[in-house]
């Protein structure tokens, strides 16, 4: 393929329409725009929260007022007016309390159906339990009762606050304190819902759990909080998916996820993020995805594994991390981040080794096309106490076309001489010769590109649960369709 052709097609680049760009017409209940102590109190009151939650929120809010927005990422964007955001927006409840499936608004059911997330349990093929979150609230959680039979709690965060206040009190903010960063503080002040998972001792969660986040309202901020506690010798696989309608304005998504694994517990947390990326040509609109995700391997031999496929959002600012406290604990981060058009991603991980013989693995695949930027930012920290800590890091970047960029920003901080760290990095361009080779076998250009890119991501896709791997592959192909020519 000649370079001229290449450039030409990148210019002509017509995006496959974002499939999930529709809005749902449903009566919503909203707090007025803007942020104040009153709004924080309003949210807490709406959720009929116990006093300790309001306290937590107000402390976070007051702390947030003193903080400044972090602007150190590679992403550039105009200042966000935090007073021009709705902090609470929920589908108006019909009389009865949400809880049973029959009470879910049919319009909402249809919305999730359209997104491929049927809320009717009998329709769920793969036997995955789902917590569906629409703007600020959880609208339905499937298989709740069945899970509870085994002692597994899977419910909305709001429900957990009233039903399991002791667990919430013990763990809320224990991994990501509200003082951690600007967006974590903001989230702590105004978060409206999210998912809560509790796996009791000696329990292998009988099915995969999953959250599906849907933003529906323009100018909303979705602030959800997820807390997963996995007791001794237990394990769970958790999947997270997200979409949003197309708007010309930007929506803020500032989530916090906290994971806690006790002795011999394992948490696998996978994300397929497909938020609306903004208009392909003008870059208008799209989600600002500013997320703090962190897991604490508190127990001995515990393991937390993050797998993320990031294909959407106008801006992604996200560093799922592990704090390896327990001896012999393991942290993993497998990531595929795709940016196309005008998307910007600054993503990576932090592995903090505290316990002895702790091990971490980081595999990051960044793919850039169009005029997008894609940065891997990672930190490996080995504390004095962490004897024989080991880390393996591999960062590979792939460039499609010559107007995009990839940056790798790894840092290491080693305070114990017994540590063993290995780092590998590569940057490659999708080879014209590879495309030609596949095409000369009758494979179309788009399929050829998709094949090369998914080959590049194979070691990460291998880590995804099956039903997600297929979806991830498809998303990737869609996202890159027509990016060469």
């Amino acid at each position, binding site marked *: 393929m000649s370079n001229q052709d290449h450039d030409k097609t990148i210019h002509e680049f017509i995006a496959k329409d974002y499939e999930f760009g529709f809005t749902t017409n449903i009566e919503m209940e909203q707090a007025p725009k803007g942020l104040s102590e009153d709004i924080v109190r309003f949210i807490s009151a709406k959720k009929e929260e116990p006093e300790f939650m309001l306290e937590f929120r107000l402390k976070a809010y007051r702390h947030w007022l003193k903080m400044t927005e972090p602007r150190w990422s590679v992403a550039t964007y105009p200042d966000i007016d935090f007073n021009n955001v709705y902090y609470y927006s929920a589908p108006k409840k019909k009389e009865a309390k949400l809880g049973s499936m029959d009470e879910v608004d049919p319009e909402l059911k249809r919305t999730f159906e359209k997104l491929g997330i049927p809320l009717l349990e009998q329709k769920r093929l793969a036997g995955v339990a789902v917590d569906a979150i629409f703007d600020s609230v959880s609208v339905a959680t499937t298989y709740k009762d069945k899970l509870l039979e085994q002692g597994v709690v899977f419910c909305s965060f709001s429900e957990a606050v009233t039903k399991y206040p002791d667990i919430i009190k013990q763990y809320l903010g224990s991994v990501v304190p509200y003082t951690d960063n600007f967006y974590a503080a903001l989230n702590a002040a105004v978060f409206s819902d999210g998912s809560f998972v509790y796996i009791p001792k000696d329990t292998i969660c009988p099915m995969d759990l999953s959250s599906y986040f849907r933003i529906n309202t323009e100018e909303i901020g979705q602030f959800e909080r997820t807390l997963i506690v996995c007791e001794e010798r237990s394990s769970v696989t958790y999947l997270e998916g997200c979409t949003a309608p197309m708007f010309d304005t930007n929506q803020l998504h500032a989530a916090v996820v906290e994971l806690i694994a006790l002795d011999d517990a394992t948490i696998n947390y996978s994300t397929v993020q497909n938020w609306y990326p903004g208009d392909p040509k003008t870059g208008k609109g799209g989600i600002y995805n500013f997320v703090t995700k962190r897991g604490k391997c508190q127990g001995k031999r515990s393991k937390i594994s993050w797998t993320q496929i990031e294909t959407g959002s106008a801006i992604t600012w996200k560093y799922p991390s592990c704090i390896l406290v327990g001896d012999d604990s393991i942290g993993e981060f497998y990531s595929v981040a795709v940016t196309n058009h005008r998307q910007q991603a600054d993503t990576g991980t932090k592995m903090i080794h505290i316990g002895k013989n702790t091990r971490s693995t980081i595999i990051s695949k960044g793919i850039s096309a169009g005029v997008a930027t894609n940065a891997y930012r990672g930190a490996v920290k080995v504390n004095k106490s962490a004897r024989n800590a080991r880390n393996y890091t591999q960062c590979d970047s792939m460039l499609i076309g010559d107007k995009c960029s990839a940056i790798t920003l790894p840092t290491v901080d080693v305070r114990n001489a017994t540590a063993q760290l290995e780092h590998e990095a590569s940057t490659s361009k999708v080879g014209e010769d590879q495309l030609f080779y596949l*095409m*000369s076998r*009758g494979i179309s250009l788009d399929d050829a590109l998709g094949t090369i890119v998914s080959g590049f991501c194979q070691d990460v896709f291998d880590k995804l649960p099956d039903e997600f791997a297929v979806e991830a592959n498809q998303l990737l192909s869609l996202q890159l369709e027509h990016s060469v020519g």
Partner: protein
Amino acid sequence: MLEIKNLHASIAEDDTSILKGLDLVIQPGEVHAIMGPNGSGKSTLSKILAGDQQYQVTDGEILFNGESILDDDATERSLKGLFLAFQYPVEIPGVNNAQFLRMAYNAKLKYNGEEEVDPIEFDDFLNEKLALVDMNESFKDRALNFGFSGGEKKRNEILQLAVLEPKLAILDETDSGLDVDALRDVSAAVNKLRSEGRSFLLITHYQRLLDYIVPDVVHAMVGGEIVKSGDKELAKELDKQGYDWVANV
């Protein structure tokens, strides 16, 4: 089958001219061989035929089954039945060989309006083809050409040829780098695939290949042109005397 008329072509990036008025006609069922010194444009010709966009055709025509294919991209040409076994097959990490082969095979079936095959059906079919080129089944699960030895890559090209069953197959130095046994296997596979409706264009430096696959016509290519054509005896002469004597006629 294939008709090349007065073909002129250059490198798209810098207009360096490589093919300078090449003519070639291959009838259905015929096997042609092209021999020529290094850098005479043999691989360039084969890649241009397959639709490599790094070259541009500046003059002349390429007709495949009577129709010009100059406006077709590589995908289209392959679907129409043209196949190139590359001199240097590229490695594609992470792409499963068997899945790739099925993808290519299904693309062809779909183009021909036939029903695509699922992985299980394809596996049986593929095992037969592997046997044909004497390849171990372990190659199914390896990444496409990735870490293959030179000879293994060549065998993998012939495997693809056997799977896709094209109308015209161009083999660019498939024999180079093959050991004696491999050469025999590959030649046997090609001979099995020879048929009335299928033509071959063999590019080689060694007359030895032509002992195994006996050509109908042999061409000498020098400086981007075909300077002499003859029967299989021409290959023997070129082997003995080199190219100077044909270049100067």
